């Protein structure tokens, strides 16, 4: 069954919010509000969460794993190379000196954390991605976009809601 994409643009956030609320309450068949609704905005609105429901963020797990891996890797690399390969005496210091090694462990802890966090971001945010065909440059300027995906059958109802909420512009396109 083919899907249809509709993008409605709103002037400001309040109007968009009303439209979304309507979509959530409307119970349109062939349109799952949790899965098929995307809000596009030029700025970050923390309120969007409230509007479209809480969605889990998993980036922190990447952070934790990255940081721990970085730190452990650093210490084992350093201590390992000091002890196993380059067992070279420095007068007044042990072969594996803990305090100096901690400095690099700390740096690698951060490095791992940052790198893997960013990796996590790209994975979680689905970037890099091709732009969806229904995109308006207005979204990056000052308008709020609501992108919905629905069965063909649900399209008129959705459009109706958008229109009622004074959408500035409605684009639609037959999806796959």
């Amino acid at each position, binding site marked *: 069954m083919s899907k249809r994409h509709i993008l409605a643009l709103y002037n400001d956030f309040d109007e968009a919010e009303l439209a979304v609320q309507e979509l959530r309450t409307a119970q349109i068949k062939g349109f799952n509000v949790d899965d098929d609704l995307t809000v596009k905005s030029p700025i970050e609105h923390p309120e969007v969460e409230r509007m479209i429901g809480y969605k889990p963020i998993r980036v922190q797990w990447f952070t934790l794993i990255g940081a721990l891996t970085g730190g452990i890797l650093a210490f084992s690399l350093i201590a390992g190379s000091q002890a196993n390969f*380059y067992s070279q005496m420095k007068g007044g210091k042990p072969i594996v000196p803990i305090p100096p090694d901690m400095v690099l462990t700390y740096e690698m802890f951060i490095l791992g954390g940052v790198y893997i966090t960013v990796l996590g971001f790209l994975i979680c945010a689905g970037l890099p*991605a091709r732009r969806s065909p229904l995109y308006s440059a207005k979204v990056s300027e000052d308008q709020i976009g609501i992108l919905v995906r629905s069965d063909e059958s649900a399209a008129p109802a959705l459009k109706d809601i958008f229109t009622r909420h004074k959408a500035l512009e409605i684009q639609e396109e037959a999806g796959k």
Partner: protein
Amino acid sequence: MGKDIREDIAWAQINKDVLASVQSPRKLYWVILFIALAVFGVGIGCEVMNYRIGLGVSNMDNPHVWGLYIATFIFWIGMSHSGTLLSAILHLMHADWRKPIYRFAEAMTTFSLMTAGLFVAVHLGRLWQIYYALPYPNERWTWPNFQSPLLWDAMAIFTYLSSSVIFLYIGSIPDLAICRDNIQAGWRKKLYSILSLGWEGTDRQWRNFRITYMTVACFLIPLAVSVHSIVASDFAMSQQPGWHVTSFPPYFVAGALYSGCAAIITLFVILRYVFKFEEYMTLPILRKTVRLTFAIAMVWTYLNCIEFASAWYGHSQADKAVLIQKATGPYAPFWWSMIFCGSVVPFAMMVKKWQVNIPIMFAVSLLLNLGMWLERWMIVSPTFAHGYYPWSWDHDQWPSLVQWGIVFGSFGWFTLLFMVFCKIIPSVSMYEVKEMVYHRTLAKKKEELGLEGGH
């Protein structure tokens, strides 16, 4: 006093104003770019001499083995810190006045780190063997010495530089998308299309963006502190009089923030003037930055006094001798200039009227930076000139033109990078200014509502 950012400024206007700065450059841009290139060329020429003839052309000697290269290295590392301060610390504190100015500050961080990195290479006697300092596996099982503060330095700079680049880039993605959407055609459009990674501003993207940005900011703060502490460790971990000072790490961090803030004021004034950003880089923001700088100046002054006091009241005669030497010996003019520029000049920032007087603040910021550069020199050189061992004192060492040339050239390199940056990445964060305006509008609305429905 000028006006703060207007709440009623149209978002489209923000886009338009800021995008104007990345449009095709004016003639003056090319002139400045060429000058920067020439200055950098001087530095390159000097480095070629260094490389081919040997480091002796710098006039360094035994035992005065470090000179302006290390001093300028610390200077550039220090300058990088305020970018982090503005973007990361103030971000976590939700200080929204940072939003119009943090982008270029962050760029400054990145570029000054890249400049500092050059000095690591320039400083080496055998640049062509620099890879020995990398922990790469090899058949001889030789590794760098992980105990060396210089290696920590290298690692910290690498971490800091890559994290800063990532931070700058992640934070710019929404703006790169704006550029992509607004720039019509040509290679720039393609570039922005790639760089923006297909950003659409969806709720999922923003959601993850927010948490990522926050997390990286959290990492950057301790990282920035650690980086300059480690640079301080180059000195504090050694045994030399005047260097082996417990208060060096915080002292270096304070000095770093100080010089960075001063540089932000400098660049603030320049960008505001060149790109006509009066609407965004407003005088109240300048005032806040100036106040912050002043506060840090006082912290720095305090830590300076602590250092002197601990030398003075401590039992190490050698430490004391170095201090006396700084104040009375051949370095005295520079040392007193440092005290003047670093601790006296900032009092100009106490004058309320002057806080928003652009020419005065511009001059002050330049003096502060001069003072901070001198500070680094005064940390490095006097200890060599007047160390533990009186026989090897060396008061005559004076950097050669080659050394000065490379220091000079580094400013060309920094300018060059910054000029290129200005034309590729919007130097004011558009989406964050929009957020700022949005939040202020909301707040104002609430206020009005509150007034209307008041009791």
